C-alpha cells in the first residue's frame, strides 16, 4: 500500500471517504515524514504534535459517527506563519512577534477548519513576508533556496510533509517558491480570498495563495477559500463557482506568450524549457500568439516597488519605532526608504497600477491564457537570498489570477516552471485550462522527489 504521505490531497480525501485510511493514519504518516526530513529542510516553525494528533483522533471519531464536517475532513494542511491561528503562535518569521498567540483564526484558516481540515503546523516565512530569508532549504538540493517568502509552504508540499499549504504573495511569494520547489502554486485574483487575520505587507498588493502537488488539488482548496468576507473590504462579491466542475472548452486554448520581457531576462535553459512547453501545447491543439503588452508594462516594476515600500513602511511604522533592533537588515531598509516616499509619488504609482490593471483586462479579452516562464532561473544557490520577484511582479501588480506548473528540470536537476495568467475572477477557466496544460506537459515532479 502507498504510504499515506505520498498521496495527493484529492487521493487522501478519496481514501478517507472509502475508509482505506483514517485521519490518524494520515497524521502519523506525515509526522513520520517530517521527522525524517525536517532537520535538513526546516520548513516548519511550529508543530503542536499533541494537538494535531488529538484533532486527527477527533476527526476519526466523527467519521465513525457519520459526521463529516466538509470536503477536507481530516486533511492536514500547512499554514504560512503570517496567518493568525487561534491558540497557536503566529510569529511572522520575526523576533518582534516571537511570542504572539492570536485569539482568533484568520478567515482563510477558519474556512479550512470549517471544511474539516486540520492545521498541521505553521510554515516558515521570510521576516514579515519580505526578503530576509527563513532557514528553509530547497528539498531538491539543500544548498539552494526554496524561494520566498512562502518558503516553508512550498518546501513542505514538495517534500511530502503536507499535501497542501497556504501562502501569500505581494511580489512573487507564491509563484516563485512553487516553481523553485517543483509544485503547483496558485495566486488567485486580488480580492478572491480574504486576507483578514493575515499579517499585511502591502495592502494593495497582498494576495492569499495556495500550494499543492497538482491543479485539481488547488481547485479543491480554492473552492473552500474563495469568497466575500465582510471583515476584508478588498474581497469581491463576484460569485464563486465550483472550481472542480469548471471545464475547458473542447477546442485548444488561445495562449498569448509574453515574449519580449521574459525572453530577454530568462536564462537560456529557462527559455528553452518554455519553448519546449509551448511546442507540446501547440501539438496538442493550442494556438499560440505573441502578446503586445501595454505601455505601462515598462513601469510596472518601479511602481510596484514604490507601492510596496510605502505601504510596508506604513504598516511597520509603530512596531519599528518600538523595536528597531529586532528588525533584520532588508526589512529595516525597506521601512526606512518607504518612509521617504512622498504621498504624490505613492498616488502616482497607484494610478499606474489602476491603468495597468485595466489595460491587462483588455489584453485578456483576446486570450484564454498568458504564458511565461515562472522564474528567470532555477532556484539560486545559497540561502542568503530567496531569488528575485522580477518575473512574478506583473501578475501581483495586475491582480490577475496566475498559476505556476512544474515544467521540467534544469541542467542542475532543479525544477523549472511556467506561469499561466487568466481573466480576473475567472479562476474556473484558468484552472480548467491549467489542468489541460498539466496533462499535456506531463511533468509531475513531486512523484520524483523522495
Amino acid at each position, binding site marked *: 500500500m502507498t504510504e499515506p504521505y505520498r498521496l495527493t490531497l484529492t487521493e487522501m480525501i478519496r481514501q478517507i471517504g472509502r475508509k482505506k485510511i483514517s485521519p490518524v493514519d494520515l497524521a502519523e504518516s506525515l509526522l513520520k515524514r517530517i521527522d525524517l526530513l525536517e532537520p535538513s529542510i526546516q520548513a516548519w516553525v511550529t508543530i503542536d504534535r499533541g494537538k494535531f494528533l488529538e484533532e486527527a483522533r477527533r476527526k476519526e471519531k466523527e467519521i465513525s459517527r457519520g459526521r463529516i464536517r466538509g470536503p477536507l475532513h481530516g486533511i492536514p494542511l500547512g499554514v504560512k506563519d503570517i496567518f493568525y491561528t487561534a491558540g497557536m503562535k503566529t510569529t511572522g518569521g520575526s523576533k518582534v512577534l516571537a511570542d504572539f498567540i492570536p485569539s482568533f483564526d484568520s478567515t482563510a484558516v477558519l474556512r479550512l477548519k470549517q471544511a474539516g481540515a486540520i492545521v498541521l503546523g505553521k510554515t516558515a516565512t521570510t521576516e514579515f513576508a519580505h526578503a530576509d530569508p527563513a532557514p528553509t532549504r530547497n528539498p531538491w538540493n539543500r544548498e539552494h533556496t526554496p524561494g520566498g517568502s512562502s518558503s516553508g509552504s512550498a518546501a513542505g508540499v514538495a517534500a511530502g510533509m503536507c499535501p497542501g499549504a497556504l501562502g501569500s504573495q505581494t511580489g512573487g511569494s507564491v509563484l516563485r517558491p512553487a516553481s523553485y520547489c517543483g509544485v503547483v502554486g496558485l495566486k488567485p485574483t486580488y480580492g478572491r480570498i480574504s486576507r483578514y487575520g493575515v499579517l499585511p505587507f502591502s495592502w494593495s498588493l497582498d494576495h492569499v495563495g495556495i500550494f499543492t502537488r497538482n491543479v485539481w488539488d488547488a481547485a479543491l482548496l480554492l473552492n473552500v477559500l474563495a469568497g466575500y468576507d465582510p471583515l476584508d473590504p478588498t474581497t*469581491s462579491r463576484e460569485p464563486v463557482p465550483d472550481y472542480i466542475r469548471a471545464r475547458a472548452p473542447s477546442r485548444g486554448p488561445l495562449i498569448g506568450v509574453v515574449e519580449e520581457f521574459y525572453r530577454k531576462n530568462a536564462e537560456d535553459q529557462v527559455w528553452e524549457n518554455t519553448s519546449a512547453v509551448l511546442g507540446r501545447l501547440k501539438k496538442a491543439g493550442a494556438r499560440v500568439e505573441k502578446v503586445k503588452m501595454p505601455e505601462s508594462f515598462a513601469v510596472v516594476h518601479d511602481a510596484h516597488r514604490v507601492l510596496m515600500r510605502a505601504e510596508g513602511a506604513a504598516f511597520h511604522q509603530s512596531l519599528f519605532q518600538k523595536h528597531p533592533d529586532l528588525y533584520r537588515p532588508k526589512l529595516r531598509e525597506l521601512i526606512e*526608504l518607504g518612509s521617504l516616499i512622498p504621498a504624490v509619488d505613492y498616488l502616482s504609482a497607484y494610478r*499606474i497600477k489602476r491603468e495597468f490593471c485595466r489595460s491587462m483586462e483588455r489584453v485578456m479579452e483576446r486570450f484564454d491564457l498568458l504564458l511565461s516562464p515562472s522564474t528567470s532561473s532555477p532556484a539560486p544557490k545559497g540561502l542568503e537570498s530567496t531569488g528575485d520577484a522580477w518575473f512574478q511582479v506583473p501578475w501581483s501588480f495586475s491582480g490577475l489570477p496566475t498559476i505556476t506548473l512544474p515544467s521540467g528540470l534544469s541542467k542542475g536537476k532543479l525544477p523549472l516552471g511556467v506561469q499561466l495568467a487568466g481573466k480576473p475572477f475567472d479562476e474556473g477557466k484558468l484552472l480548467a485550462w491549467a489542468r489541460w496544460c498539466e496533462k499535456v506537459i506531463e511533468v509531475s515532479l513531486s512523484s520524483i522527489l523522495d
Partner: protein
Amino acid sequence: MPAPTKEEIRLRILSDAAAKKYGEERAQALDASIRDLARALAVIENYPLEMEEEPSFAR
C-alpha cells in the same frame, strides 16, 4: 551648467531627507538603495498618466 535631471533632483531630496531622519552614516549605508528609489520615482513622474486615472484599491 545643464539643469539637473528629475532623477538627480529626486536623489538630492531623498539623500538630504535620509541624512536628517537617520543620520549621515546611515544615509551613506542606504546610498545604493536611495539611488534606486530616486530612479524609480523619476520613472513614475515621467509616465504620462491620463487625467481621468484614479487610484483604487478594488479591481
